C-alpha cells in the first residue's frame, strides 16, 4: 500500500495538478472579476467554449498558436460583449442571461465547426501548439517536487499564475479595482461619486471574457491540438464553485483551482496505475463529486459582494 501511495504522489502528479488547474484558474478569475462588480456569471462554460473554438480555428488558419491564442481571446471577448449588453443595458436577469449565453455558445461552436472545418466532432489538428513552447525557468525548476510543477510548464500555465498575482494587485491597489469593489457592494454610491457603474460592469465582463478566452485557448491549443465540441466538460461550473470556495479573491480562487487540478490529476494517475480496481468512470467523476464536497464545506464561510446579481438602473432610462 505504501508503495502504491508513492507511486501515486510523484512529481508528475504535481506537474499535472498545476497544468490541469489552469483552465479552471482562468475561468475562476473571470468569475471573480465579473462577480466582484456585481454581475452573476454562470456563462463561463459557454464563453470558454467559444474561446477554445476560435483559438483552434485561428491558430490552424495562421499556422501559429500565438495568433490562435489572440484569436481565442478576441472571440470570447466579443461573445461576452453580448452578455454585458444583455445584463447591463438590457437589465436581463443575470442567471437567465448566462443560461442563454451557454445555449448560444454550443450552437455557435457547432455551426462554425461545420462552416470552418466541414465536419462535426473534432476540428483539424494544429501543426504547432503552445505545448511546443514549454520552457523551464533555469534555477527554480530544479527544486524537487515543486520545481517541475511550477517552473517547467507551458506558456498559459505561467500566464495563469501571473494573472492571479496581477488581478490581486489590480483589485487591491488600483482605481479600477476599487471601482469594481464599489460597483459590487454599493453601486449607487459609486454612481453618485461620478463613476459610471455601467462602464465598470461592461469592463469587468469584457475582462472576464478575456480570461475565459485564455482558459478556452489552453484547452484547445495548449493541452491538446484541436477543438472538440463540448470540450469544456463542466469546467465552467467547477470554476463557479472555485470562485465561491475562494471567497471571491484571486488568491483563494487559485488554491481552490489547484485543488480541482489535483483531483483531476489524481483520477488520471490512479486510473493508469490500476489502483483500487474501480472502473474508469468512477475516477472520471471525482472532480464533480469533489466540487460538491468543496461547495458544501466552504460556502458558509464566504460572503458574496452585497449587490451581486442585483440589477442596477439609473433614472432617466426607464421613464414611467
Amino acid at each position, binding site marked *: 500500500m505504501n508503495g502504491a501511495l508513492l507511486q501515486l504522489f510523484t512529481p508528475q502528479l504535481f506537474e499535472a495538478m498545476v497544468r490541469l488547474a489552469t483552465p479552471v484558474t482562468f475561468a475562476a478569475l473571470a468569475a471573480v472579476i465579473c462577480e466582484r462588480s456585481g454581475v452573476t456569471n454562470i456563462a463561463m462554460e459557454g464563453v470558454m467554449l467559444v474561446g477554445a473554438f476560435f483559438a483552434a480555428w485561428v491558430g490552424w488558419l495562421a499556422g501559429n498558436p500565438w495568433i490562435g491564442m489572440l484569436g481565442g481571446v478576441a472571440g470570447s471577448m466579443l461573445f461576452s460583449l453580448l452578455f454585458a449588453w444583455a445584463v447591463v443595458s438590457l437589465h436581463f436577469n443575470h442567471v437567465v442571461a448566462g443560461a442563454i449565453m451557454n445555449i448560444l455558445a454550443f450552437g455557435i461552436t457547432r455551426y462554425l465547426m461545420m462552416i470552418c472545418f466541414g465536419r462535426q466532432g473534432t476540428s483539424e489538428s494544429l501543426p504547432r501548439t503552445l505545448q511546443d513552447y514549454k520552457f523551464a525557468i533555469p534555477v527554480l525548476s530544479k527544486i524537487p517536487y515543486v520545481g517541475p510543477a511550477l517552473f517547467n510548464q507551458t506558456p498559459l500555465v505561467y500566464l495563469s499564475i501571473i494573472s492571479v498575482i496581477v488581478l490581486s*494587485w489590480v483589485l487591491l*491597489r*488600483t*482605481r479600477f479595482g*476599487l*471601482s469594481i*469593489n*464599489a460597483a459590487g*457592494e*454599493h453601486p*449607487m*454610491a*459609486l*454612481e*453618485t*461619486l*461620478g*463613476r*459610471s457603474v455601467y462602464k465598470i460592469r461592461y469592463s469587468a465582463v469584457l475582462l472576464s471574457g478575456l480570461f475565459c478566452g485564455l482558459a478556452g485557448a489552453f484547452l484547445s491549443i495548449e493541452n491538446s491540438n484541436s477543438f472538440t465540441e463540448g470540450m469544456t466538460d463542466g469546467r465552467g461550473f467547477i470554476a463557479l464553485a472555485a470562485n465561491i470556495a475562494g471567497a471571491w479573491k484571486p488568491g483563494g480562487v487559485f488554491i481552490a483551482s489547484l485543488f480541482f487540478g489535483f483531483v483531476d490529476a489524481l483520477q488520471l494517475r490512479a486510473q493508469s496505475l490500476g489502483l483500487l480496481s474501480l472502473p474508469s468512470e468512477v475516477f472520471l467523476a471525482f472532480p464533480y463529486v469533489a466540487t460538491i464536497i468543496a461547495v458544501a464545506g466552504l460556502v458558509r464561510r464566504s460572503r458574496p459582494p*452585497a449587490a451581486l446579481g442585483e440589477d442596477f438602473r*439609473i*433614472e*432617466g432610462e426607464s*421613464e*414611467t
Partner: protein
Amino acid sequence: MTPGQQNVLETQHITKRFGHLVANDDISILLKKGEILAILGENGAGKTTLMNILFGLYRPTSGSIKLQGVDVNFRSPREAIAAGLGMVHQHFMLVPPLTVTQNIILGQEPVKNGHILYDKAKKEVQELSRRFGLEIDPDAPVMDLPVGLQQRVEILKALYRKASVLILDEPTAVLSPREVEELFEVLKKLAANGTSIIIITHKLEEALSIANRVYVLRRGKLVAEMDATRATPQELANQMVGRPVVLSVEKPTPTSRDTAPILKLEKLCVRSQRGLPALVNVDLSVHRGEILGIAGVEGNGQDELCKAVIGLCGIESGSIRYKDKDISHWNSRRRIEAGVGYIPEDRHTSGLVLPFTLSENLILGKSDRPPLCRHGILNKREIDSNATKLMQQYDVRAERPSTTVSTLSGGNQQKVVVAREFSRNPDFLLISQPTRGLDVGAIEYIYKKINELKVQGVGILLISMELEEIFAIADRIAVLHKGEVVFESLAQATSQTEVGEYMFRGKLARRAQ
C-alpha cells in the same frame, strides 16, 4: 456670519414629473454665497427630488439651473461634482466594507504608475479632518462606524472634492442632540469659509437655529420663503401642512387591565446578526387592552425586539412568556396560530408578496385552515369572498380582489397588511413603524383601527421612531437605548422632551422634576 450678495445657485421654474405624479411644481429658489439655506417640508413634499435634480441624478422635466450665473445642465453626478456641488445623502452613499479613506477618495483617487497612493490619500484625509474638526480614523471600515461618524465621512467626501455648494439631506435624522450641535458648528465654520449650504429637513426648530433663510415646500410646490430670524415655528408648521394641525385622534382609556400580562419579556438578551449584544436584560410587559409604545432612535435594538417577539431569531438568555406560557423557542408559525398578529416595519420586504393578488396576500399565514383550504386544496371562492369582505371593512381602495398588490398605493398596501393581521382576531399585536411613508389620511385611519382593537381587549406592542406617533396612541411608553430599557412611564406622566432625552442620552438623562 453674514452671507454675501451674489447668487451662487439658482433654480428657475423647475418642474419634475414621474408619469402622472408631479414631484416638483415650478420651483424657483436661490442660494447666496456663504449662506445656510433650509428647505422644509413634510415627507413626500418633493425636497429630495429637488436635490437629486440639483445633483444630476434626475433631469428636470422643465426649468433651468444657474450656477454662478451660468446655465448648467448636469447629466450625471460626475458633472455636478466637477462643478463644485457636494451632496450628503439621507441614506448614506458609503460602501460598507471599504475603509473611510477608500470611501472618501473613491472616484478621485491619487494615482501614480497605476496604483493608488494610499499613504498620500490618508494624509490628505487626516488634514481635512483636522482642518474642519471632523475627527475620524482613516483606516476604519465604514461598516464598523456608528451613524454619526458615518455622516462625517459623507461630509468629508464632499470637502475632499472641494465642494463650494454643500447639500445635506435630512442630516439630523439619526443624530443625538450633541451630535447635532457638533454638526451645526462644522456647518457654521464652513459657511464662514465661503461654502454655501443647503439643508433639507422636516425639523422646524433645527432649521430655524442653523439657517439664514428658509423655504417651505408642500406637495411639490414652493409655498413660502422666510428670513430665519423673523419666522416662527408655528407659522412654518402651518405652511408645511397647509392647515393648523394636530393629529386629532382620541385616545381611549385602556380597558381594565388583568394583573397578568398577555406578553412578558423577562431579562431578555438577544444578539444581533453580527454577534453583538442587541437587547440586554429587557423586562417588558404588555397587558390586554393597552398599547405599550417603545420609543428609540433607529438601531438601538428595535429590530431584534421585533424578531424575538415574533419568533424569527433566537434569544441568548431570558424568556418570553405569552398567555403565561414560555414561548421563547416557538417558531413564528406557532406564535401566529396562538393569536399573535404582526405588522412589520417594511411592508414591501416582510409584509406583502408584491406580485401576489389581494386575495393571495390576505391569506398569507392563514392558508392552512378551513374554510380557506381543505385537504390541501385552496377554496378560491372562499378566498375571494374573504378578500372582498376585508377590502370593504378596511377601506382598501382597489378595483377587485384579483388586483396585484404592487399596483396599490403605499397607504392601501399597509391597509392590506392591517386587514390581514387584524382579521386574525389576534390576542396580541406587534406593530412596527405602521405609518412610515403614508399620507395623513391613511395615518389617521390606521390609528383609528388600532384603537378599535385596543378597546376590544387586544394587547398591543408598538415600536416606532416617531415620538408624535407614540404619544398619539400609546398608553405606556418605554425607551430603548443601546438595547436596554432606560425609561418607562405612563404616557400622561411624561413629555416628548423627557422621552427624547432618554432616547438620545440613555441612562445619562436625568429624570425631569
